[in-house]
């Protein structure tokens, strides 16, 4: 895991260094709007941000800060330490990702079971069809259309997780209710493709298990179909389901970036996109690093869960 993380950190740094230019070019572009040359200001800022040092020096400084002081560097654009900026947003990102994961499970599990058990039934075809539609529609398209529908037909205020009147207000019950009114949209949008994939996986896994001898054994014991379904094949088919935590998290985080930009969510997505665009490199780097790290941790968690659920893996 440590080598993976090390590799992740280096790659991250390479990625954020790849595009030519630096943050000041982006700033200069913005300032171009003021209509007049402002190289005067840019020069002093170049010094301010310590840009221009060799690549490896910047990397080692950055890593040293992270490892020794938990300091992820400074965001050029926000002029604040990265650590000040990201935790809130990471919280939302993971909050939404975890809720999305739950949404995915809650929909994919029963639908997957249903379409495996009632293979080639009308319900199976409907589930399959909608599952694939979910896979086929690009996230951002779905997000925009849903937003427009919410605006047009429900008169809902769009963008963000709470209505404007609650922005910056302390948390109250009303605000929480308002949050619930908004948060389902990104969850559904981000979740559809994941759910579709998991329905397919669940269906396939369960089909593999449904005709195994131990199911017949259980049936011969006199268990009801429902009992035996949940106690035996579903339990076994859950294994790959659990291991999805590992790969679905990065997928969700990625998907969430695009959706968050369209839906204006207070998550890391817009921050990361923006940071990459303006080459706010420590901010971008830290976000990628942390998200990747959490993904690695997520994989670890899924491995642990898998071992907990499946004794066979535990004993290997």
């Amino acid at each position, binding site marked *: 895991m440590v080598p993976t993380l090390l590799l992740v950190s280096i790659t991250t740094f390479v990625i954020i260094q790849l595009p030519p230019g630096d943050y000041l070019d982006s700033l200069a572009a913005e300032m171009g709007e003021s209509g007049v040359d402002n190289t005067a200001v840019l020069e002093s800022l170049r010094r301010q941000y310590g840009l221009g040092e060799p690549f490896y020096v910047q990397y080692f400084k950055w890593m040293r800060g992270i490892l020794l002081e938990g300091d992820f560097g400074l965001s050029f654009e926000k002029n604040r330490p990265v650590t000040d900026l990201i935790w809130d947003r990471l919280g939302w990102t993971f909050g939404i990702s975890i809720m999305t994961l739950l949404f995915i499970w809650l929909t994919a599990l029963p639908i997957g079971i249903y379409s495996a058990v009632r293979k080639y039934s009308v319900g199976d075809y409907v589930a399959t069809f909608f599952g694939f539609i979910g896979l086929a529609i690009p996230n951002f398209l779905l997000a925009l259309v849903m937003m427009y529908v919410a605006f047009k037909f429900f008169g809902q205020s769009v963008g963000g997780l709470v209505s404007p009147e609650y922005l910056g207000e302390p948390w109250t019950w009303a605000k929480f209710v308002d949050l619930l009114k908004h948060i389902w949209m990104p969850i559904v949008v981000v979740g559809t493709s994941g759910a579709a994939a998991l329905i397919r996986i669940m269906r396939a896994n369960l089909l593999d298990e449904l*005709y*195994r*001898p*131990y199911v*017949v*054994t*259980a*049936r*011969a*014991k*006199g*268990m*009801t*179909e429902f009992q035996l379904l949940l*106690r*035996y094949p579903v*339990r*076994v088919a859950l294994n790959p389901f659990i291991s999805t935590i590992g790969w679905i998290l990065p997928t969700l985080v990625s998907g969430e970036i695009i959706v968050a930009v369209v839906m204006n969510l207070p998550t890391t997505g817009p921050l990361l996109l923006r940071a990459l665009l303006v080459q706010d490199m420590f901010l971008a780097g830290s976000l990628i690093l942390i998200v990747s790290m959490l993904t690695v941790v997520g994989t670890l968690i899924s491995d642990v869960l898998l071992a907990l*659920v*499946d*004794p*066979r893996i535990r*004993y290997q």
Partner: protein
Amino acid sequence: MRTEAVPGALLEISGLKTHFFTEDGVVKAVDGVDLTVYQNRTICILGESGCGKSIMARSILRIVDAPGRITDGRILYRAADGREIDLATARQGSAQLRQIRGQDIAMIFQEPMTSLGPIQKIGKQIVETILLHRKVSKAEAKEEAIEMLDRVGIPDPRQRFEAYPFELSGGMRQRAMIAMALSCQPRLLIADEPTTALDVTTQAQILDLIAELKEEFAMAVMLITHDLGVVAEVAEDVAVMYMGRVVEEGDVYAIFENPQHPYTRALMASVPRIGVTKSGRLPAIKGMVPHPLARPSGCPFRTRCDSAMPGVCDTSVPDLVPAGDSRTACFLFSDATGNG
């Protein structure tokens, strides 16, 4: 071997047809089986792979997987309280059927490796069965399960109770399967090739165990096998199946000493016997079992039968009729008009 008076019938199967409706056509896995299982007796169902013996056994418990379906016939089960239940028409998933499964009729399978839930503890699976059918507390069920494990010869049962199937050897797993099957003291144990996947020594142990337990629990045993040796060792009654039909049925001695049906005869002839020396190869049955979708008309065995009578055997299917000491389905012993 026991030679007591014939006790009452426990299970009467008549005209059972279990067909598989595949996209390529209808596979008639079981096509008109008549069979009777008697209380406290061991009946062996003998036949080649694919002759329908397993499907027939599964039909009894109604655990035939789709696209298989019982299309005709009766499976009359005589319960302990004297009621007669037709298992062939019992509603799938009904409480009645579920009660019979596991409690009245239990089944063990060919592959102990895969027939137990892979990620549940052995003990739990047995307890589950007990709790399904009997009103006992969990603790009691656990004690019983441990006792059962002990009874089937699993050493250190209290510890094994907590074991997962993959931690046990094949023999131990089959013992555990037996423990589970017998945990509710069924009246009939169906054993579907219980020893095929085991090594020779273990095979013998398991068969001995089944025989022993049969005495102890006073139950009937239906043993499905393709192994003549097994039949010789444990059977009291024998039914020989070929292509979904019982071709000969009778007392084990009758079948072994005086087989009637050409198929049974050929089978017996293929057994090497100690003391009998023959030059060359053992005689074999000619040809191959026809493809299930290419069922011969009339008597299904006629394509391989040395005594096949053109014009007779290929027009209609013979019924079981008494012949010698057994009952045989062959036109050598009956009129062609017996069955249309």
